[in-house]
């Protein structure tokens, strides 16, 4: 880690600020270049899933607790928004549901505190099983709490009164704002002691407890923040679709997609999940568009993923970062007298 002249690690680096600036510019400019609705739609889903992957990465990547239940909170966020803005209500302008999102996220985070406290009494692998159980419990409740969710018949939301020519744009920018918020948290984690504490939990939780890391509190709060963002994503998604069903709101495939995106791009990094979403979501949609009728797109989608995992098992970003680091150390001759075991993830360098 580069230290400042005073010996402290910097919060902001010139390259970090530049990367952030480029991302904001791309998020604003990119869709303007393509006026077609299907491209706006694809970009909306890419950015929404990128935000969820970055959020999942906080707990699944940095802390090493692979939650498979994030879709439960996605669904809760979706139904919370649907309950507040019922289809019978006519919106004077279309922005109220977006302004309500922080409250939806906060509600999901508060709900996650006791759940996380109980679920995180077990270690990472068992935690994955506990959280997938949570997802199926939430899905079952979605089907059966008919007064809130409408059951299998679904629930409608207020129609967004945006002009048809620009209908996708407010949703896209809401998702982009959520992505920047999630990335801001991930960036903050990598630049503070919180990031080191999470990495220590992932590496060896018992040892971390033994050197005074407040493991329980850190894990539970990180889980709450992670699912809070996921709940907000659910709210945007529900408002965009206008009508939601339990089988899609509490869909295990949502969790699987965001886990795959994170692993593909590189977990425990700020940019890895964004990269993974930027590859997988358009690939999935384009393959579905071109070869969707034959279902071959699912095989092609899996093949892309398997190929990258075969060639870059630690994810794209950590593989390249580690190679660049090793090359730089070999040039400086810093490798003498050390083991050459690579780090298991991208660490927290990017």
């Amino acid at each position: 880690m580069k230290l400042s002249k005073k010996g402290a690690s910097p919060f902001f680096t010139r390259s970090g600020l530049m990367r952030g600036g480029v991302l904001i510019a791309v998020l604003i400019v990119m869709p303007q270049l393509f006026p077609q609705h299907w491209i706006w739609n694809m970009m909306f889903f890419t950015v929404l899933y990128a935000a969820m992957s970055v959020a999942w990465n906080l707990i699944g990547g940095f802390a090493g607790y692979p939650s498979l239940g994030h879709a439960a909170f996605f669904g809760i966020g979706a139904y919370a928004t649907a309950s507040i803005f019922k289809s019978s209500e006519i919106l004077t302008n279309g922005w109220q549901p977006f302004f309500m999102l922080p409250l939806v996220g906060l509600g999901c985070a508060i709900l996650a505190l006791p759940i996380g406290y109980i679920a995180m009494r077990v270690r990472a692998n068992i935690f994955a099983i506990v959280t997938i159980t949570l997802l199926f419990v939430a899905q079952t409740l979605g089907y059966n709490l008919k007064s809130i969710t409408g059951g299998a018949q679904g629930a409608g939301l207020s129609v967004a009164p945006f002009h048809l020519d620009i209908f996708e744009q407010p949703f896209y920018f809401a998702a982009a704002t959520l992505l920047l918020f999630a990335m801001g948290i991930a960036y903050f984690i990598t630049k503070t002691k919180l990031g080191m504490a999470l990495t220590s939990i992932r590496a060896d939780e018992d040892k971390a407890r033994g050197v005074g890391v407040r493991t329980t509190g850190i894990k539970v709060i990180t889980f709450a923040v992670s699912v809070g963002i996921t709940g907000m994503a659910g709210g945007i998604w529900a408002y965009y679709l206008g009508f939601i069903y339990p089988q899609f709101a509490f869909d295990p495939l949502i969790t699987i997609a965001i886990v795959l995106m994170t692993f593909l791009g590189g977990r425990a990094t700020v940019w890895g999940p964004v990269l993974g979403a930027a590859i997988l979501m358009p690939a999935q949609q384009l393959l579905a568009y071109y070869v969707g009728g034959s279902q071959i797109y699912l095989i092609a989608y899996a093949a892309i993923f398997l190929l990258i995992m075969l060639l870059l098992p630690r994810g794209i970003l950590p593989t390249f970062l580690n190679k660049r680091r090793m090359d730089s150390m070999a040039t400086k001759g810093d490798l003498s007298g050390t083991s050459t075991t690579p780090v298991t993830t991208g660490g927290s360098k990017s």
Partner: protein
Amino acid sequence: MIELLRVENLTKKFGELTAVDACSFTVKEGSITALIGPNGSGKTTVFNLITGYLPSDSGKVEFAGSSIRKQSPGSLYRKGLTRTFQQARVFADLTVQENLVVAGGGKWTNLFGRRITAEDQSRAAELLDEFKLSHVADLYASELSWGQRKLLEFASVLMSKPRLVLLDEPTAGVNPILIETMATHIRSYNAAGVTFLIVEHDMSFVMRVCDPVIVLDRGKTIAVGDPETVQSDPRVLDAYLGD
């Protein structure tokens, strides 16, 4: 010398097996005390019970005059009681310097401060220099050799300026030169006021570095005394050599 650690009738059972059986001993402040015994005598279990990694079934553990029997490892660490493990445990995905900083402890609010402050950097640099790890400060811990990991683990528990350090087999698997380095560091930190309780199988190391020596057999304390006395105690010879 005052008692820093008091263990009284400490007992731990795993099913039908009594791993620690009414074990009692004390560790005086400023001493380098050894805890020895044949394989399976319960030494590491005693460490786990003292440091809060395992709950005991009965008995008392007091640190600096206060009961610590039901406290967590983190809380004990903040009170100045810390330990190393038989297999060197370091955080593989953190750099060597970060391994030290994360072990520096501190308040909740520090979590939201800079990853490495100037103060952290200076404290870590001191230890890295002492343990001759400065040249690998920016490497990930996973890239260190076994001996370097042992040194890093030892250095990291000293970051919080502890009063009592429990070392579990500090010389296991390290070369003779590094064993001497370990002995030098233990003596030097002991001279600076740190008390040590050491589980060790290398008798030559124990006899050179530690005094007193506590001997466990089948979870019970069978002898306590200076190295020479313990070495010639028939109960100890019997425990090691059998009937």
